[in-house]
């Protein structure tokens, strides 16, 4: 399952691109090619455990969910 905060966009406030690029809705910025592997849960990466931004966001916005993850 890919990260629920991953989007693919053509543009943000700063840049506009010919192709859609991975975009993090939490950080509100485009994601580097390297980091996009984590967002997409490619290879052995999992956004729930490997993305510090996702983890911090969930801990702050959805503490109940974060607490369940700690069980």
């Amino acid at each position, binding site marked *: 399952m890919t990260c629920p905060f991953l989007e*693919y966009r053509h543009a943000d406030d700063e*840049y506009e*691109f010919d*192709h*859609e*690029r*991975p975009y993090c809705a939490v950080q509100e*910025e*485009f*994601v*580097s*090619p*390297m*980091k*996009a*592997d*984590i967002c997409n849960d*490619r*290879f052995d*990466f999992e956004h729930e*455990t*490997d*993305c*510090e931004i996702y983890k911090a966001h969930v801990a702050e916005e959805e503490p109940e969910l974060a607490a369940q993850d700690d069980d």
Partner: protein
Amino acid sequence: MSYQDYLDREKLILTVATTGGIHGKDANPNLPEQPEEIARQVAACEDLGAAIVHVHGRDEHGENDPTRLQAVNDAIREQCEDIVIQNTTGGQSPYENRVQGIRTEPYPEMASLDMGPFNRGEHIITEHTRHNIKRLAREMHEKGIKPELEVFNNGHLNEVHRLIEEDILDPPYYINIIFGSGTFSMPTPRNVINMIDNLPEESIFNLLATGPNQLPLTTLGMIMGGHVRVGMEDNLYYRQGEQAESNAQLVERTVAIANWLGRDLATPAEAREMLDI
């Protein structure tokens, strides 16, 4: 190699790394990602004197995709005269993906061979076990592909010595010494000189340094008789606060420095001869 090689006016092999796998157009919109735009920038760099191009593949979103190496290789061959193609076998994906860099057709003349793992971000570590490094080295040897041995830190130089002792590599050993942040060697002139002092016999070194270290340390590499790699994979800025307009802009500056230092540039044919490709 040493300062004496500089005094002897050893020709300089200039490699350009246009794209890489770390940064995207969101970091610098001038970074080329798609095959045709990569090839256009490579052709401009070849015109300026680059002899080797280090190649990565990206998908339509700008994300890493080794299956696109074939398209990038094809576009470079179409748009360039004679530049030596060096495909990556690095990155954070599994071995099955990374080996695609030596399975394009025709085979590339060179490929990178990471000498060990390194860290990225908080959770990424590249999967470069000794077993996988040897598998790649053996396949390159079978196919006549010259490896560029990527020494990301001092310990990786131990690994080069180990492979030489195991008779897996053929001389001259082309060793890329890498300086930057994180698990790379710390970017200081003293560390550059120490690294050069510890190179094995029959080796030729290339120097790569990231970000603001690219300009000063590649210049030092030229003075120490080595070869250099520049480009937007390693450095997105021309100077502090000013993004690079193109790879050619970075190559042009390095060519100018080489000229001032009296290092004539090796053509692709001369680079092949020097590296026994």
